[in-house]
C-alpha cells in the first residue's frame, strides 16, 4: 500500500458513485427510530423500479438533527427528509425527480445547519462507516501516509503543539505537550489508549463519532503512536454502545486487510495494532488511571498522580491517553496543516467543539461549532430555544463534573477558560438545556446521586462525602433542613473538592456549587428556620413553615 494505491481506491470509489444518492442515517438515534427498515425499503423500492444504476442507497453516520430521525439526505442537494417511514420510501425516490415527498424536509438555511463548522464530523453523515473505501474516498489514511513517509515523529509532535489542539475529554490539557512527554519518556514499550468511555449522562458526541467515522479514530491513533513511539493501542469503549463496538471491530478488520494497521505500515518500519477493550459500566473509568486499571482487567480504581500515565501508565509503560474527539481532529490537522487549525477558534482554545444538544430544547442533536461561539447562538439560534413556549433557565455543561450556566450568562463564549470562570467546565461536550420547570436543587441532587453511586470507594472524602452531601440535599428538598445544614453542605463541598483522590470526587461538588452560586434563592426557599435552642423537637414541629 502506498500513496498511489490510496488515490486509486479513491478514484475507483468516486467513479462508482451514481447520479443520485440517498444517504440514510444509521447511527444509534435513528436506528432506534426504525432507520433499518427505512433503508431496507428504500433499497427495495430502488431495485423494484429498476433504478439501481442511477440511485445509490448509502448507509451513513449521524446527520446531526437526532430529534427528527430517521433522517434521509437525498443528493444532489434535493433535501434532508425528516421522520422518514418505510411507507414514504416511494415518494422519496420520486422526489429525486422533483416529485412531492410525503414527509417533511429540514430547512437547510436554519442556523442549526449553517452555523456548524465540521472538522471532527466532516465525514459524519457522508461516508459509509462500515466501508474503508468510503473513508479513503474522503482522503482517509492520507494523513497517516504523509506522517509516516514525510515527517519525523518529532515533526508530528511539533505540528500538534503548533495547532494548539487541547484535550477534548474535558480538562483541556494541550495535546502536543502530552504527546511530547510520552515521546520523551524512556521505554521500549509504549501504549496509546483512546478513551471512549463516554460516561457523562447527556453526552453522545463520542458515540456518534465512533458510529459515523470509526476510521478517523484509528488513523488519529496510528499517527499518535508513530509520534510517541508506541506499537500497541487500545480503545476503551462503553458496553452500552454496542453499535459503536461493532463498527470499530469492522473498521479494525478492514484496516488490517488494507495494511493501514499491522506491521510495516506504508512500507515503513512502523507497526501498530489496535485492540478494543469493552467497559463494564463504571463512570470512574473515564478517569485515566482508573481506565488503565480496567484495561489491565482489574477494578477500575484510580491511583494518585504523579507518576502521570505519560511516564508510567499501562503495565508501568509510558502511555498516551486521549479522548475520541481529540484523535478525530488529528488526521485533519496533519492533512491541512497546524496553521489552518490554529486559525479557527479563540486565542487559547483552538479548533471546533462538538456538543450534544439535548434536554428542553427544540432541536436536539449534534452540533460542531468553532470555539468561542456564544452559548446563546448555540442554544437560541441553533437549538431553537425551549419548546412549547418555555423559557430557558440554565444550560448544564460538563455533566456530573460541570455546572449550570444561568440564562443571564448565555452570552459567554464556549471556550475552556470562560466556562471554568462560571464554575462549570467544557467537559466532554454534553449540553443539557433546562427550562423554568426544572428545579435546580433537584438537578444538584440528581448529579450528586450519580456521583455517590459511581464513587469507586477508594478514598474517603469522595466515598463518604458524596453520601453526606446527597443526604443534605435530600433533606433540603424534603424541607427539613435549616441554614446550618446549608452551611454544612457548602463546607463539605469545599472539603470533598480539595481532598479527593481523583477527578470524580474533586468535581462531584461542582453541580451543587454552581447551582448554589446562581440559584441560591431556590435553596433558601426550601429552608426551615432554626429551631429555638436547637434540640426541642416538639417545639420545632410547631414553628411556621417558610414558603
Amino acid at each position, binding site marked *: 500500500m502506498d500513496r498511489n494505491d490510496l488515490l486509486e481506491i479513491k478514484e475507483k470509489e468516486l467513479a462508482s458513485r451514481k447520479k443520485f444518492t440517498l444517504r440514510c442515517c444509521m447511527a444509534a438515534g435513528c436506528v*432506534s427510530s426504525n432507520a433499518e427498515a427505512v433503508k431496507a425499503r428504500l433499497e427495495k423500492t430502488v431495485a423494484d423500479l429498476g433504478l439501481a444504476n442511477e440511485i445509490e442507497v448509502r448507509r451513513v453516520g449521524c446527520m446531526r438533527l437526532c430529534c427528527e430521525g430517521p433522517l434521509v439526505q437525498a443528493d444532489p442537494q434535493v433535501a434532508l427528509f425528516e421522520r422518514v417511514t418505510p411507507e414514504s420510501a416511494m415518494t422519496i425516490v420520486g422526489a429525486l425527480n422533483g416529485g412531492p415527498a410525503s414527509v417533511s424536509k429540514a430547512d437547510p438555511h436554519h442556523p442549526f445547519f449553517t452555523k456548524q463548522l465540521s472538522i471532527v464530523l466532516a465525514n459524519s453523515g457522508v461516508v459509509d462507516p462500515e466501508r474503508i473505501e468510503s473513508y479513503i474516498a474522503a482522503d482517509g489514511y492520507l494523513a497517516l501516509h504523509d506522517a509516516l513517509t514525510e515527517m519525523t515523529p518529532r515533526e508530528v509532535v511539533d505540528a500538534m503543539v503548533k495547532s494548539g489542539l487541547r484535550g477534548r475529554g474535558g480538562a483541556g490539557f494541550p495535546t502536543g505537550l502530552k504527546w511530547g512527554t510520552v515521546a520523551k519518556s524512556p521505554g521500549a514499550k509504549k501504549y496509546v489508549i483512546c478513551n471512549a468511555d463516554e460516561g457523562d449522562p447527556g453526552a453522545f458526541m463520542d458515540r456518534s463519532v465512533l458510529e459515523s467515522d470509526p476510521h478517523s479514530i484509528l488513523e488519529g491513533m496510528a499517527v499518535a503512536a508513530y509520534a510517541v513511539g508506541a506499537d500497541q493501542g487500545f480503545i476503551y469503549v462503553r458496553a452500552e454502545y454496542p453499535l459503536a463496538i461493532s463498527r470499530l471491530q469492522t473498521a479494525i478488520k478492514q484496516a488490517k486487510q488494507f495494511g493501514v494497521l499491522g506491521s510495516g505500515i506504508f512500507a515503513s518500519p512502523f507497526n501498530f495494532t489496535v485492540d478494543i*477493550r*469493552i467497559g463494564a459500566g463504571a463512570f470512574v473509568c473515564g478517569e485515566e488511571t482508573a481506565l488503565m486499571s480496567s484495561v489491565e482487567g482489574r477494578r*477500575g480504581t484510580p491511583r494518585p498522580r504523579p507518576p502521570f500515565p505519560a511516564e508510567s501508565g499501562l503495565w508501568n509503560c509510558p502511555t498516551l491517553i486521549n479522548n475520541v474527539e481529540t484523535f478525530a481532529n488529528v488526521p485533519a490537522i496533519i492533512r491541512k496543516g497546524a496553521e489552518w487549525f490554529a486559525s479557527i477558534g479563540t486565542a487559547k482554545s483552538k479548533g471546533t467543539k462538538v456538543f450534544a444538544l439535548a434536554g428542553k430544547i427544540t432541536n*436536539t442533536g449534534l452540533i460542531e461549532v468553532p470555539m468561542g461561539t456564544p452559548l446563546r447562538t448555540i442554544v437560541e439560534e441553533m437549538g431553537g430555544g425551549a419548546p412549547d413556549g418555555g423559557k430557558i433557565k440554565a444550560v448544564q455543561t460538563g455533566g456530573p463534573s460541570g455546572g449550570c450556566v444561568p440564562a443571564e450568562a448565555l452570552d459567554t463564549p464556549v471556550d475552556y477558560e470562560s466556562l471554568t470562570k462560571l464554575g462549570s467546565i467544557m467537559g466532554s461536550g454534553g449540553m443539557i438545556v433546562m427550562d423554568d420547570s426544572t428545579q435546580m436543587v433537584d*438537578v444538584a441532587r440528581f448529579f450528586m446521586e*450519580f456521583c455517590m453511586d459511581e464513587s469507586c470507594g477508594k478514598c474517603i472524602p469522595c466515598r463518604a462525602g458524596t453520601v453526606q452531601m446527597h443526604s443534605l440535599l435530600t433533606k433540603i428538598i424534603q424541607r427539613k433542613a435549616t441554614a446550618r445544614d446549608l452551611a454544612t453542605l457548602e463546607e463539605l463541598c469545599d472539603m470533598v473538592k480539595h481532598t479527593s483522590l481523583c477527578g470524580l470526587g474533586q468535581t462531584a461538588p461542582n453541580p451543587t456549587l454552581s447551582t448554589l452560586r446562581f440559584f441560591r434563592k431556590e435553596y433558601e426557599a426550601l429552608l426551615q428556620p432554626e429551631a429555638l435552642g436547637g434540640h426541642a423537637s416538639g417545639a420545632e414541629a410547631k414553628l411556621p413553615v417558610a414558603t
Partner: protein
Amino acid sequence: MLEHASGDKRFKMLEVHMKKHQQRHDALIEVLHKAQELFGYLEDDLLLFIAAKLALPPSRVYGVATFYHFFTLKPKGEHTCVVCMGTACYVKGADKVIAAVQDAVKVKPGETTANNKLSLLTARCIGACGIAPAVVYDGTVTPRQTPEAAVERIRKWM
C-alpha cells in the same frame, strides 16, 4: 485439562474464549462479558470456574465482577426493561416513566418480578439523548416514551 463437572457445553465455549485470550489476566473483563452473555448472569460457581481457568484468586474475580454495574450476580427475568436515567432523559420526564413502571409491576429498579417475567433496570445514559426519554425493552431502544406507553408495553409481558 479438567472439564466442568456439569458437562454444560457453555463452559466449553467459555474456555475457548479464554484460550483465544491466552488465559491472560488482563482479559478478565472480556471473559466475564462472555460468561454473562452465555449464562445470563454470573453465579458463584461460574466465577470460581473462571478463577481456576485464569489462575487468578477467586477474590480478584469476585472483586471485578461486583465492581462493574454491567455484571449481574443474580438471574434476570424473562424480559428486561431498562429506563435510561441520563440527564437528558431525566429532564424530559424519565423519573415519571420509572415511577409509573415501578407502580405497575411493584418492583424497584434492579429487581425482578415474583413471576420472573420482568427485570426492571435503570441505565446511567445510553447516549440516545436526542430521542429522550428512551427506554430499552429487551435490547431494543425505543424513543420518546411516556409513562402510559411504557406501562402498556410491559403489561403485555406480565
